[in-house]
């Protein structure tokens, strides 16, 4: 009896570690960021300028960083979703076994390319392409960052969407085909709707990857902290700001605390996205 209980507590302990880690991370970030709420005050975060090093007046407004992250993420998802969902449909439903054998390993290789390498590729190859295509004077802008990020997100989203499509029961498809529906009708009216929760989960994971990505974004987005909705303007993302400035910021300074505030905001955003994703999943689950 006690053995049973011992094993059970051990398992609960193991299962709840991640909960604890999340709580601890929140606490740690909060602890480092908290002094910022006292001295400059939280309202300083809602400034429209991010000028952390200045001989005039240091300003720690995260609005340009927030809008930068949002713009890059939005653009990246606009590119990622059609490519990866259509790709997943092809691989899961239409591809011949041989095609699948070739396509899948390459998608996996794409997923495993380190982000710094992709960033370098973006800087040297992609940025000049974007520059000449749009006739700009530089290729370092939000769009280049978004394209690069979608290259990173596509393999993840394809793999998970494909799993979701494959897990749709075969009887659904057979029933649809038996009722006289064409293959395309079956795919878009039966299989995809049935796999939709999984596809949405895949997209949410993709968003998570995109918004948290740092290195590649830092190398190609130009990092100018301006508020803009123009894809061809440079933007500075939250992650790039933390990565670029944390290295040499004086420990415990207001700037240091401001960077932790960005960390908290980033965490809250990803946390919020996760919660929304869960809600969507639950609602779709109930409808079926």
């Amino acid at each position, binding site marked *: 009896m006690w053995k049973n209980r011992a094993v059970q507590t051990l398992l609960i302990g193991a299962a709840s570690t991640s909960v604890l880690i999340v709580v601890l991370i929140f606490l740690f970030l909060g602890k480092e960021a908290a002094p910022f709420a006292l001295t400059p005050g939280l309202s300083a975060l809602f400034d429209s300028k991010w000028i952390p*090093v200045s001989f005039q007046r240091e300003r720690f407004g995260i609005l340009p960083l927030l809008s930068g992250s949002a713009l890059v993420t939005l653009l990246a998802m606009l590119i990622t979703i059609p490519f990866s969902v259509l790709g997943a449909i092809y691989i899961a439903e239409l591809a011949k076994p041989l095609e699948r054998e070739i396509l899948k390993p390459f998608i996996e290789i794409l997923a495993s390319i380190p982000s710094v390498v992709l960033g370098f590729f973006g800087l040297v190859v992609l940025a000049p392409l974007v520059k000449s295509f749009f006739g700009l004077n530089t290729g370092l802008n939000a769009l280049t960052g978004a394209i690069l990020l979608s290259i990173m997100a596509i393999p993840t989203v394809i793999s998970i969407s494909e799993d979701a499509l494959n897990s749709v029961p075969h009887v659904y498809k057979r029933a649809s085909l038996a009722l006289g529906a064409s293959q395309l009708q079956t795919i878009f009216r039966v299989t995809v709707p049935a796999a939709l929760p999984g596809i949405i989960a895949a997209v949410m994971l993709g968003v998570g990857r995109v918004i948290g990505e740092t290195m590649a974004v830092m190398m190609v987005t130009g990092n100018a902290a301006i508020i803009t909705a123009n894809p061809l303007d440079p933007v500075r993302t939250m992650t790039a700001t933390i990565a670029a400035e944390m290295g040499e910021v004086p420990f415990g300074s207001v700037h240091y605390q401001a960077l932790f505030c960005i960390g908290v905001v980033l965490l809250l955003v990803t946390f919020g996205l996760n919660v929304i994703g869960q809600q969507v999943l639950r609602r779709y689950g109930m409808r079926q």
Partner: protein
Amino acid sequence: MKIKALFMISLCIFLFGGCKASNQEGDKNAGGEKAAQKTHKGLSIKGSDTMVHLTSSWAEEFMKINIGSEVSVTGGGSGTGIAALINATTDICAASREINDKELSLAAAKNLKPQGVAVALDGIAIIINQANPVSFLSQEELKKIFTGEFTNWKQLGGPDQAILVLSRESSSGTYVFFQEHVLSKADYTERAKLLPGTSAVVQSIATDKWAIGYVGLGFAQKAGKDIKTVAVRKDDKSSAVEPSVETVKAGLYPIARKLYFYIGEKLSAQTQQFVDFCLSDKGQAIVQETGYVTIK
């Protein structure tokens, strides 16, 4: 269910308690480390990130010559290095700027008189694309470009093209030096692109025809054929000076700085030996190899 909840709560308490305890332990350890560092026979150098490459090259060569000696080099910025010198956690502070009055009074409060030794010179070159016809700029014009007052090359006698302003990240010592000496402490334009590292600036200027940026002299000389340096004149009366080892050494090129070692008054034999080595012919040859300008 109740048991589970109880268990979770106790686990939390246990972990947080542990966390706090280990924190205190960490503080103690840090204190111990400080004491240990003082008695340790190795030499530690801390400070400017601009100089890390130079000081670590010196340290490597020094350790090769003096077998058994240990020199550790860390960056962190000139300010960090000076603070470390005042707190006696480093033997030598590498600084790409002079110590300021506030830091001197902090040191005086601890009965310290930091001595500065200039060990090398560094010039900051303004670089543009080879296709850009502009060949010289005044310091005033540079200020206006980097603060966003000038936005088009035609305001500087060039073609009708928008100026693309490139800068290093704000954590860079060069960023601060440039802001202080060229921008007269004004803020950079918010349209300036902050690039992570010198190579990114060089790469971007090589491909973007109407970009302008600043890099250390050593990098500018190795930057390749797509890039050219701009001659700089101090004001309208003086003549424009090309950045080069000679002009920096002669004090003609306006955007240059001295790189310092700051050391305490009483030196250990090893510290003295290391500083002497850096100023020796061999040490100064390394200065040249790493792209800086020799002091002698």
